[in-house]
């Protein structure tokens, strides 16, 4: 009897505790939902970034022992390094030219695919394939194609224009073009998919009205289509540009930054400084400068684009 009573009391207490817990968890429901995700972001993004502020201001080099405070020396090292400056220039040049090309080619594809026709579904499937390939694999594939002397591209060019002395992956300016081609191969489908979503959502009535009024097709495109899809164009270019400035994988695999340091991008430069030369302090200082540059881009481009639509 006594035991039973005790047991009952235990159950009751447990039930009461469960009730208060559930009341508490219901009250803080919305915060409990985001808590694990935020904890993880704090641990693996915010904490490392905060820690790296310290790294950027001290000596942090696997070859020089100790972590003496060095002030702005790490930042000076990067800012004054001609390789760093060149890599920033290369990054800007490569990302702007690839994104521009991808936009034009993708817009062309989207226009060509707007209307339905036989076989459209299959072509659609093929067109999106590069989006699912690892960038490092894309780089590997293009290296196979562009290499000399056994690659198919060099052979075809030789057949068409006579033998060349050009080395597609190391010669200037060909190495930059090769990198751009690989990037365009992978990411034109990105532009295409988003722009197509825009084009197919333009109301057909707009076109019909314009056609009735006898407006020329060029004018229709310029005055109706473009303004209608402008928000999507901005989104597509923003997303691409913010990824393009991080260009690393295809550099790593296609040129290795070379010859010399001529195809270093900023990400590749920072990787080399930190993980090949082990100047961790300088690399971290450089990453912070790069982070600030991209943060400016992000704030300018993304904030106004992704305002949640009113529900």
């Amino acid at each position, binding site marked *: 009897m006594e035991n039973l009573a005790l047991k009952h009391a235990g159950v009751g207490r447990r039930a009461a505790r469960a009730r208060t817990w*559930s009341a508490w*968890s*219901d009250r803080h*429901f*919305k*915060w409990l*939902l*985001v808590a*694990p*995700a*935020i904890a*993880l*972001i704090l641990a*693996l*993004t915010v904490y*490392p*970034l905060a*820690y*790296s502020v310290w790294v950027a201001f001290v000596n942090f080099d696997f070859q020089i022992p100790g972590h003496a405070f060095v002030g702005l020396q790490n930042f000076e090292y990067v800012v004054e390094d001609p390789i760093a400056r060149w890599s920033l220039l290369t990054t800007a040049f490569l990302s702007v030219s690839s994104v521009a090309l991808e936009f034009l080619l993708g817009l062309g*594809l989207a226009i*060509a695919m707007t209307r339905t026709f036989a076989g459209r579904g299959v*072509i659609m499937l*093929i*067109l*999106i*394939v590069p989006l*699912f*390939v*690892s*960038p*490092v*694999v894309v780089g*590997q*594939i*293009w290296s196979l*194609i562009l290499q000399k*002397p*056994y690659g198919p591209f060099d052979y075809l060019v030789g057949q068409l224009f006579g033998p060349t002395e050009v080395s597609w992956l190391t010669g200037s300016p060909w190495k930059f073009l090769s990198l751009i081609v690989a990037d365009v*191969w992978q990411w034109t489908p990105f532009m295409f*998919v*988003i722009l197509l*979503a825009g084009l197919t959502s333009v109301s057909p009535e707009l076109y019909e009205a314009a056609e009735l009024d006898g407006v020329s097709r060029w004018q229709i495109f310029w005055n109706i289509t473009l303004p209608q899809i402008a928000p999507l164009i901005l*989104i*597509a270019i923003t*997303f691409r540009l913010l990824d393009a400035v*991080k260009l*690393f*994988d295809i550099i*790593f695999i296609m040129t*290795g930054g070379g010859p010399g340091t001529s195809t270093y991008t900023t990400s590749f430069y920072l*990787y080399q400084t930190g993980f090949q030369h082990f100047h961790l302090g300088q*690399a971290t200082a450089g*990453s912070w400068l*790069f*982070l600030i540059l991209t943060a400016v881009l*992000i704030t300018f481009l*993304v904030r106004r684009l*992704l305002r*949640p*639509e009113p529900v």
Partner: protein
Amino acid sequence: MRSGRRPRRRRKGALSFDNLVRIVYLGLFLVFLLAPLYWTVITSIKPVDDYMTIPPVWFPEQPTLVHYTAAMFTYRGLAGLINSAVVSIAATALSVLLGTLMGYSFARFNTGGQHLSFWVLSQRFLPPVAVVLPVFLLYRNVGLNDTRFGLVLMYTVTSLPLSAWMMFAYFRQMPAELEEAALVDGYGRWGALWRVALPLALPGIIAAAVFAFIFCWTEFFFALILTSRSAFTLPTIFRGFLGFQASSYGEASALAIVSLVPSIMLGTLAQRHLVRGLTLGAVRG
């Protein structure tokens, strides 16, 4: 409806100038897109003697699979494949779980307002190089370097903005009435989420999972730095081919094929959700 409306001109069928331009353009682009893939497939099944020839061998007389076995065992492709699969699946599960909870909270309660959701989104655009160095040092201190678990955590956090925002967008366009009805029926918040909202959001969850998986499967940079001899993933094996010799063309191509087939299959299956996936739900495809 107005009667007597002028019928639209039908261009279908006739080979107008428009159609000709369209066909030529699409055709050229498809060649540009497919030729590299064709060349990779062909290279992966060529006998070694066919590599160093001019003109190149466009189609091998005696296809062989030896490069696939060499890639799998000599180049440790199989170990990389297993690591990639384990890490990608675990990180996808974790990322979609945390992202779904977060997206739900954002969509239904506007938790933290625009600032919090924007902050989460901005993580998506962080340059990995800015984060990886301190993470590398942190992992070294706590013994997570070159472990699958360490990579899983890193991939979870980097794919989290994608999962959270895709689910945010999904829940936002899903009516809240059913959950409210469940609350009235005495389900409690968790019950309403678990038994009503999540089952309804399943298509969105699957789409988010596909994109998170593809992200993890194709990622190179973090794996390059945070893993070495034991937890290395499939993409990192390609660094072994840097400045490579003709003798390893077959293995490199075979590995490329092994790497791209699973993600292409998954991706094309999720084609309907592609636009949402690419823009983190900012554009409804």
